[in-house]
């Protein structure tokens, strides 16, 4: 009995000390930029004339979003994530929202966590069908006419899932289902930030739907902020 008390009195401060260390808010991080070299294929024009309710929502010509570039050879829509070195996180309860608006997917690439709620919304005046072509997770295909409630789902395994609408063949997107909360999707300037990383050795993976995958090993000591770049080889087709 006395022994137990001693263990508890000694153990509690030790545990709280360890907890303090691992939850240090100003931990290190990885940030950087994704660019391309070479000549990317020109985005193709999308003809929405068969879907007037969508066509009229766009004042500027709409092009495919398979490869979206920004100033200074920056590459948009690249998922940058910690593929090894970080523990699997429990999923947030906040849903990841995938919107269908103007017969386009917003965002084009949606990254979220395993078991995180996914919410698919139709903001158009036309019927869409949402068809995530999962291979590792379950493949489903649901119709979503205008004015119907959001479709709620979740995925229990990590996977990059192509999403399409069969009614509107130009609509293509991706669900990036990831194991932990350390991920970012590059913006139009190609930048990304993975904050709050405790010291450690990490594998950082960058994924692009047309140009494939790259990885880098990054070691963070203390609360170091590392800067890295990914350069993808653009394919002209």
């Amino acid at each position, binding site marked *: 009995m006395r022994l137990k008390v001693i263990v508890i009195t000694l153990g509690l401060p030790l545990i709280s000390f360890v907890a303090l260390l691992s939850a240090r808010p100003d931990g290190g991080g990885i940030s950087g930029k994704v660019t391309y070299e070479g000549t990317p294929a020109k985005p193709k024009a999308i003809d929405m004339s068969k879907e007037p309710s969508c066509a009229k929502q766009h004042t500027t010509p709409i092009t495919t979003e398979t490869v979206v570039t920004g100033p200074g050879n920056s590459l948009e829509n690249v998922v940058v994530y910690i593929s090894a070195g970080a523990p699997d996180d429990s999923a947030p309860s906040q849903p990841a929202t995938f919107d269908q608006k103007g017969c386009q997917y917003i965002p084009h690439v949606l990254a979220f966590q395993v078991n995180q709620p996914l919410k698919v919304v139709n903001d158009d005046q036309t019927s869409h069908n949402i068809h995530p072509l999962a291979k590792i997770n*379950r493949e489903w295909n649901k119709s979503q006419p205008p004015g119907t409630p959001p479709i709620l789902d979740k995925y229990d395994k990590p996977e990059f899932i192509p999403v399409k609408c069969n009614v509107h*063949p130009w609509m293509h997107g991706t669900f990036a289902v990831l194991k932990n909360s350390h991920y970012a999707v590059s913006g139009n300037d190609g930048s990304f930030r993975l904050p709050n990383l405790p010291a450690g050795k990490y594998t950082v993976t960058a994924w692009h739907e047309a140009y494939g995958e790259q990885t880098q090993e990054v070691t963070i000591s203390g609360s170091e902020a590392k800067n890295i770049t990914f350069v993808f080889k653009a394919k002209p087709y």
Partner: protein
Amino acid sequence: MSAHKIAKSLFLTAAALLTIPGLVTGQQMESHMGKLTGHADSGKQLYFRFCWGCHGFRGDGSGENWLATGNYPTQPYLNIQPRNFDAAVFKCRSTPTGTLPTDEDLYNSVGRGFVMTNMPSWISITNQQRADLVAFIKSFSPRFKSEKPGDPIKVPAEPKVTVESIKHGQELFQKLECWKCHGPEGRGDGPSASTLTDSNDQPIRPYNFAVGSRFKCGATNHDLYKIFMTGLDGTPMPSFADVIKPEDGWDLVHFLRTLQVTNKSPELALWESTKEGAEQIASRKIHGTPTGSGINQ
């Protein structure tokens, strides 16, 4: 360990290794429907006699009839890729989209065959043999070991066929935009029809209602109702279970029957007895063939 025990364990290991392609460890896969119980080991014999020419040695749909060979090196013998059992994605189910089919669903599919494809109706083999095949087919995918089939969707009793029901079905056909793929007259020639691909990126045609009386997953109104609610997984046909009410589903069934202008159904007869229906049916000249050729897209 005694020599006898070693010999026994070696034998068991060898036996386990021989159980390709399912690599079944632990219990043998079975199928259950009603009083029938199918056994994978019996099904395996049948599979490698009847099925593997199309569905392949590994059950991945890449049998020699699909692979490009012989006189037509650029084109496979079949124009629709046989089902890949490894993916465990099946068109004809009684279960919600994204879930595994029941054993009975698979059993029915083998017996029914798939209209407008090269999959025949396997009524030439016995019920027990079909049950055995289902048990073996399930061993190709690990999903059947880790997941349970979905809960079958409920099909409420079919209401009486009325002109109002057909008319409402017609409105729903417009509103739900079925015509985008199936065409305004259900001939499979809608504006999106020519762009459709299945989940293997193979071109696929929407169903042409104007020919024949059967659907991909059965011939009855009950089967057609199920198709709306489950969707045909692996194809562009989605599930409408979350977006239409059961009575709307039946109205659609009644209207779709009137699109089958060569099939004398009670729905077609009733619709033809009205002025609007008679004009509509008369205006629909028959063209096209069951394989879909000759249809203008």
